[in-house]
């Protein structure tokens, strides 16, 4: 079976800075795959390249058999890839509801959209109580939930999550990770970027370790979590 997302040997630059140095990575349908690594390793750059905000100078990205590298970002969303960006990036000057409406921007099926608002509000009851609140006044955890709800509104086949645990209290991180597992069980494939390697490895099927633009380790998440190298570098011993 061909992989759902197939990243083949891509190189990504910011001007003269060579940020991604020939990485290859696959995500199969139904999986949770995590990409872990230290600050500046190139995790966000990888996700931004998949989403079409950056274009690889060399290499190719395929999604469901079609080449998507080089397509503009809006076409990649339409192909079925949605991203929850690092730092949440909600539209702070708009209401919770308007943020969700923008998440459904590519859709025209009114009834389906209504249903999905309900799905999001069931998954994140705290958002349901705050529909008309300015998104910028939400707490950090609520903003993360809004960013996830917004991304789900496009009905993605593949959900990219960039450090959803960032800046959240441990209890809330656990809640967010439970929701990620639920979303995956409901049929959405997940590519999860994390610095919180412990948590990420605990819910993922497979994992890749990124170091300064190169993948240095990959494999089964449980095995990586047990491996000496990973424990030393990312799991605090």
């Amino acid at each position, binding site marked *: 079976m061909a992989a759902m997302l197939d990243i083949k040997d891509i190189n990504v630059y910011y001007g003269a800075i060579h940020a991604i140095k020939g990485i290859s990575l696959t995500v199969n349908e139904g999986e949770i795959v995590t990409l872990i690594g230290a600050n500046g390793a190139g995790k966000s750059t990888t996700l931004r390249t998949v*989403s*079409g*905000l950056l274009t690889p100078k060399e290499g190719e990205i395929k999604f469901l058999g079609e080449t998507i590298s080089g397509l*503009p*970002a*809006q076409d990649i*969303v*339409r192909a079925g890839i*949605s*991203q929850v*960006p690092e730092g949440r*990036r909600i*539209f*702070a*000057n*708009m209401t919770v509801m*308007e943020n969700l*409406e*923008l*998440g459904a*921007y*590519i859709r025209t099926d009114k009834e389906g959209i209504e249903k999905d608002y309900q799905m999001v509000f069931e998954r994140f009851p705290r958002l349901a109580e705050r529909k008309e609140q300015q998104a910028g006044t939400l707490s950090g955890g609520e903003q993360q939930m809004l960013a996830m709800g*917004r991304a789900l509104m*496009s009905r993605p086949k593949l959900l990219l999550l960039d450090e959803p645990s960032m800046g959240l209290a441990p209890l809330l991180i656990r809640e967010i990770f439970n929701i990620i597992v639920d979303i995956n069980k409901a049929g959405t494939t997940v590519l999860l970027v994390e610095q919180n390697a412990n948590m990420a490895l605990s819910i993922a099927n497979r994992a890749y370790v990124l170091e300064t633009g190169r993948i240095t380790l990959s494999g089964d998440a449980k095995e990586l979590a047990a491996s000496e190298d990973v424990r030393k570098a990312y799991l605090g011993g």
Partner: protein
Amino acid sequence: MDFGSHLIQQLINGISLGSVYALIALGYTMVYGIIKLINFAHGDIYMVGAYVGFFAITVAHMGIFPALIVSMVVTGLLGMVVERLAYKPLRHAPRISVLITAIGVSFFLEYGSMYFVSPTPRTFPRVFETEGLTIAGFTVNGQQLLIFAITLVLMVLLTYIVQYTKIGKAMRAVSFDTETAQLMGIDANRVISVTFGIGSALAAAGGVLVGVYYNSIDPLMGIMPGLKAFVAAVLGGIGIIPGAMAGGLILGIIEALVSGFISSTFRDAAAFAILILVLLFKPSGLFGKNTQEKV
């Protein structure tokens, strides 16, 4: 006439003039909001709008309302073409290059117009000869009523589009955070193009209304109102739509009061003094939050 009635008469004049400033200022502020460009060619777009209206009336023998709509459509399309040809190729260029290009576009429109329609001022036909209103001794003439009505309708329409329609929400999203808007599947280039279209159409309406009000148009007529509208946009808070509306009206009223009570020679000085004061004491404008902008 006693002081009170003189004051009210000047306020009426000021609101008429201010409405036109507001219509032009909206285009400045919307374009700035979305691509952080001070579009110095915007005053000339307003001039083109006045000419399109002029020819629609004189050559095509249209009435004022059809001429207004034709002018808004044609000039709106011109704004989109200018964006596509002059600004879009510079999307990732330093801001100063885009600014210089805008000044180039401005000269191009001014002197291109001189070539095609001659530099001599044209007399705008008297197409709107309704009786004014006289309420308790104050006259609001027919042209002023027309300006109030059209401006009001356009502002309500614009507010509706920006607040409640899909394209309006996309405009707000792109203007707040272009990259994240793209992650929602929004085609930022299309939204930018539509923004230029709407802003240019509003300026065109201002151009036609000024033609009706002052009866005279010429290829350089956009320079001063363009600058004034820029002041109005900064006064209200550049990038903020209600700010441009309020800034235009306030500026028009101040100018009318200065002309009426001091001397009309100080009118322009007053406008630019306001710009200096705003930049010194509240650079974010009346409606702006005092945040440091990262440049």
